[in-house]
């Protein structure tokens, strides 16, 4: 089958049920009902706190072939996933599906367990390093499924991704299972991704290094969803969980890209009182916060809400009254975590509230402007954020598809050249976000407006930024770096990239040279 963006999607892919080709950002209309966890009886004063992870694994009834989930708020400081998978392996359980909201480099530790068959399938937002290479290698027993944050929430709520046991790293947890992410030595801020797992998994295990007497408040994940609690020495390395305030880049090229992006916003027609905005955590995105702040002050404009992926520059805007409220699915630095704790206008939200296209209103649908990064983009405005120049998985879809589809104006920032490689090309190796949902591409040498958005191109005429056709940008990139040879791949499909609605937007074939 050829999907709506011209990618070939085989009719049969091992391990992938009910294959639907991508048909457009809002073409697929779902049917059916939400799923839910099993119903249980809970007696007064029952004990939830268990002695060890091993005991919790036994209590959940985890068996061969089941699906376990984790959340990635601890980023590169996460101990929970590695610790639990090691304990599961010791019990001799095999054939599990691992469904974390994302994977970080630190999770490479579990590769031996994948090789031993403890884990045979992975469904996640992305992976890096050795893990990314493994998922691309074709050595996995089952095809990997890549989903966006909104797509994952959708898959869980629809029952497409059934989680048997969710393991939730709990920075603070009381003895009856109320959890928040803002207290304790391993505070990570928002628990937005884990909220969906907790609400829909059959069994939920909280793993904490900060067990407190009942009741804990505020509550992010409630006692009504948590079956068992295990106290351990440490659930993460605070240094890897959150850095000090993320700093604005000093790289002049990133700053220039950020300036162009900010000027594009200013002239787009969306830069008005009470507009809303999401900025990523990439260098140019963060730098844009600084320029946007200056423009907002200059013109006396404030935003109704900010969305993220939250970082210190965003918090400064909240504290200075430039943004009325922040909705937060994940935090990247310590000021953001602290802000969520003390500022009532800094709201935690679930991944479903954030981006699930099949609920009654994800906040991305209210978003005016988003700035997103990209690994590579093509002349159809398609964006790749998952595979590198060798065709190997090295990134994550995250909220890319979701915010691009939801926002009225989606801006993708990318350098024209990365090292010796052109980043604006004829065809991206893997499509993650369809060009139909991308409005502007900003590079250091020029800004291209999607031809679907003639209105934007007209608006940017006055902006004093170099507006070019996307083909001109590609030609410029090729002029400097040459046209790259296509990556040679086998027929073997290592991973599928779902669009947020569950249709397949692309597949990742095993590169011949890996």
């Amino acid at each position, binding site marked *: 089958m050829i999907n709506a963006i011209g990618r070939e999607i085989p009719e049969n892919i091992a391990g992938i049920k009910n294959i639907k080709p991508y048909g457009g950002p809002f073409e697929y209309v779902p049917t059916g009902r939400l799923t839910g966890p099993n119903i249980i009886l809970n007696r007064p004063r029952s004990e939830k706190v268990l002695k060890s992870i091993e005991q919790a694994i036994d209590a959940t009834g985890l068996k061969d072939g089941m699906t376990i989930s984790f959340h990635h708020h601890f980023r590169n400081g996460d101990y929970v996933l590695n610790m639990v998978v090691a304990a599961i392996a010791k019990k001799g359980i095999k054939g599990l599906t691992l469904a974390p909201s994302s994977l970080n480099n630190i999770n490479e530790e579990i590769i031996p367990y994948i090789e031993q068959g403890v884990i045979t399938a992975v469904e996640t937002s992305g992976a890096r390093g050795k893990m990314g290479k493994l998922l691309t290698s074709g050595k996995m027993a089952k095809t990997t499924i890549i989903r966006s944050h909104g797509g994952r929430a959708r898959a869980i709520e629809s029952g497409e991704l059934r989680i048997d046991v969710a393991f939730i790293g709990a920075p603070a947890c009381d003895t009856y299972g109320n959890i928040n992410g803002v207290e304790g030595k391993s505070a990570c801020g928002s628990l937005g991704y884990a909220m969906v797992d907790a609400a829909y998994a059959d069994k939920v295990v909280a793993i904490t290094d900060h067990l407190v007497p009942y009741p804990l408040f505020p509550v992010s994940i409630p006692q009504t969803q948590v079956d068992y609690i295990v106290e351990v020495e440490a659930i993460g390395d605070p240094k890897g969980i959150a850095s000090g305030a993320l700093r604005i880049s000093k790289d002049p090229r990133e700053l220039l890209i950020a300036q162009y992006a900010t000027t594009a916003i200013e002239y787009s027609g969306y830069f008005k009182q009470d507009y809303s905005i999401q900025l990523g955590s990439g260098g140019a995105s963060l730098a844009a916060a600084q320029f946007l702040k200056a423009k907002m002050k200059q013109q006396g404009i404030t935003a109704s809400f900010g969305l993220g992926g939250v970082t210190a520059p965003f918090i400064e805007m909240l504290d200075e009254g430039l943004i009325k409220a922040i909705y937060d699915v994940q935090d990247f630095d310590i000021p953001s975590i602290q802000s969520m704790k003390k500022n009532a206008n800094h709201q935690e939200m679930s991944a479903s509230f954030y981006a699930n296209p099949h609920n009654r209103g994800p906040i991305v649908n209210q978003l005016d402007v988003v700035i997103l990064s990209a690994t590579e983009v093509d002349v159809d405005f398609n964006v790749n954020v998952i595979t590198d120049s060798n065709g190997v998985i090295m990134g994550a879809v995250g909220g890319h598809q979701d915010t691009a589809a939801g926002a009225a104006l989606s801006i993708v920032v990318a350098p024209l050249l990365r090292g010796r490689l052109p980043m604006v090309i004829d065809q991206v190796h893997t499509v993650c976000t369809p060009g139909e949902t991308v409005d502007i591409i900003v590079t250091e040498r020029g800004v291209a407006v999607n031809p679907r958005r003639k209105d934007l191109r007209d608006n940017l005429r006055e902006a004093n930024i*170099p507006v070019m056709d996307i083909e001109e940008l590609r030609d410029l990139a090729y002029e400097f770096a040459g046209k790259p040879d296509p990556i040679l791949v086998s027929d073997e499909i290592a991973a599928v990239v779902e669009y947020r609605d569950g249709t397949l937007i692309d597949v990742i074939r095993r590169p011949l040279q890996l």
Partner: protein
Amino acid sequence: MKLRRTMMFVPGNNPGMLINAGIYGADTIIFDLEDSVAISEKDAARHLVYNAMKAIKYPCEVAVRINHISTPFGYKDLEVILAVKPDLIRLPKSETAADIQEIDAIITAAEIKHGFVPGSIKMMAAIETAKGIRNAFEIATASPRMVAIAIGGEDFLADLQTSRTKDGKEFYSARGQLILAAREAGIHAIDTVFGDVNNEEDFIAETTRIKEMGFDGKSVVNPRQINIAHQIFMPTTKEIDHAERVITAYKESLARKSGVVSLNGKMIDVPVVKRAERTLAYANAAGKNNGRVKL
């Protein structure tokens, strides 16, 4: 009107910087073969700059700072670089008119050899010693190729046996003499670099100060300084408004064949008209090339 508000140094031995040097909106980029390049990399830098200039279309004036011709590298720099026709050769540590004339002759020979329009490659000189300052006017007028003289900071301070201060006292006399020489010679005066790129506040203070002294531009070492400097050199809206009114009044008086120009009942002298013309020409040039980014 040719603007040289910012002349940005780019180390000649850094390929990444050479590729992107043109994107930041500097009025002039100066590929450096001299102080930012270690002796062991002089030849590499020379060939990298040569190839970059051959392959890349830069959107602005391109200068090359060569090594002084008293070093083993200066002549070789000229031989290689002149073949790709830089807009400007910048000579460091200029002390006498003879330095300039010697290079002028080499450039003339290269223009003939490569078939370039005679006189199309311009020159500028950096003055970095007390002796050079004393000879500033002679240097500025040593060749018709000369378009600018600049003051070179650190070497000059060493020669003067002093060091940097916050308000730049150490440069008072040198900057004063340099601007006088440049104005008399009818060429641009360019100020020295401000090396502490993270100190925006003092960069703004210094650039404002030298603009007020009459300098035409500043050497910069980081793209982040470009827009700031351009904003400082840009005439204010008020200045442009005033200039427009002066010119209108002047034109009206010409139409009336009246020798007296007056604006709001006040007499306007000829120098005021000249300044207004300059302000408008400057604003026009800066508007076309104001770093391409509106801040």
